[in-house]
């Protein structure tokens, strides 16, 4: 987002939003991209139709199977101050599963995870630690070694 396109007050609020102050600097290297298994982890409050929608600032997460059909993906993010038209037209704007599948078919990445995950991005990140570690264990069990994080 080019913040200069927003009213000054909103741009200031977004740029000064409180962020966690981490003391560690983790950095994981790995195999070439063509050998990586990639998952999407989104903070867009995505849910599979019929699953429990995010209410407010829930700190837990939802699993999104790679077989989820486009009609079954909903966005329950609490904020109304971001565009939803793009997602309504094409889920890949927020959840680029079709693009990852194409990149895997083209050999640009190794493979695509069996399951992807979503959090509610408006939640205090510190509250998400337990959920994030649980997601990490599930991703590891699925042999995922690369995560594309998408926010809104």
């Amino acid at each position, binding site marked *: *987002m*080019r*913040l200069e396109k*927003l009213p000054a007050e*909103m741009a200031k609020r*977004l*740029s000064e*939003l409180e*962020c*966690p102050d*981490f003391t560690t*600097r*983790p*950095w*994981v290297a*790995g195999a*070439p*991209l063509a050998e*990586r298994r990639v998952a999407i*982890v989104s*903070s867009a409050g995505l849910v599979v*139709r019929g699953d429990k929608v995010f*209410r407010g600032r829930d700190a837990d997460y939802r699993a999104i199977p790679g077989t989820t059909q*486009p009609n079954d*993906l909903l966005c*329950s993010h609490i904020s*109304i*101050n*971001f*565009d*939803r*038209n*793009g*997602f*309504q*037209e*094409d889920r*890949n*704007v*927020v959840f*680029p599963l079709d693009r*990852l599948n*194409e*990149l895997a078919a083209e050999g*640009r990445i190794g493979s695509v995870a069996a399951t992807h995950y979503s*959090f509610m991005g408006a939640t205090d*990140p510190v509250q998400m*630690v337990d959920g*994030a*570690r649980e997601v*990490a*264990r599930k*991703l590891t069990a699925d042999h995922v070694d*690369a*995560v*594309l*994080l*998408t*926010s*809104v």
Partner: protein
Amino acid sequence: MSALGHYLEEEGIATVAIALIRPQAEHTRPPRALWVPFELGRPIGPPSDPVFQKRVILTALRMLVEGGGPVRIGDFPDDDPREALDPDWHAPTNSPPSAGWGLGAPLAAAVEAELRALAPAYAASCVARERSTVGLSGLPPAECGAYLAAWLRGERPPSPVEGMSPGLALRFAIDDLKAFMLEAALTPGTRPSSRQLGDWLWDRTVLGAGLQVLRRTILAGDDERLKAVAAFFVPALRVASGG
């Protein structure tokens, strides 16, 4: 989002975040982030543009195999081409300016009539896109409209959704109705910008006018729980003057 990257990387999984707000990534200092200049809500860029989307994704994923860590923030150079207005897109309805409406039966009836009028366009759009994002409340659009209409008449109806408070059901019903309207406006073959669609919804529909009135009325009341919900009816950039 950048914080999630930190947590996952600590558990041994390499991550790259698509960051829409660069200062937030700078403050959180995730292992890797690609800042993109697109509007909020569009981390991968333009809808229905697989070539552009793949460029964004690959630019991000390549950071996984490049050095430069343990904190690296890159910049995607190109703007979203879908920010441009589409001169071939036309609004599906044109209602009177929003200023004249107040809570009451006429507004409620007008909102429900507008929803009925747009139902064929919504159905055609769903067929063309093979999907809908309506569904958060669990109610079909007409029932969402009926529930909202009761509020617009000044009533305090019980929740029509088991397990949801009246306020929460109202919030999700409104989310569904906004999705219904905006999807109805996605005329197959056109490429409207979010600004075009937003200008229509908030300046030229009865629903937009009704949500402004309902928000203003609830925020002027003394029900704190309901006021917390009403804050999520109208985007900050669309709140009418005096609202």
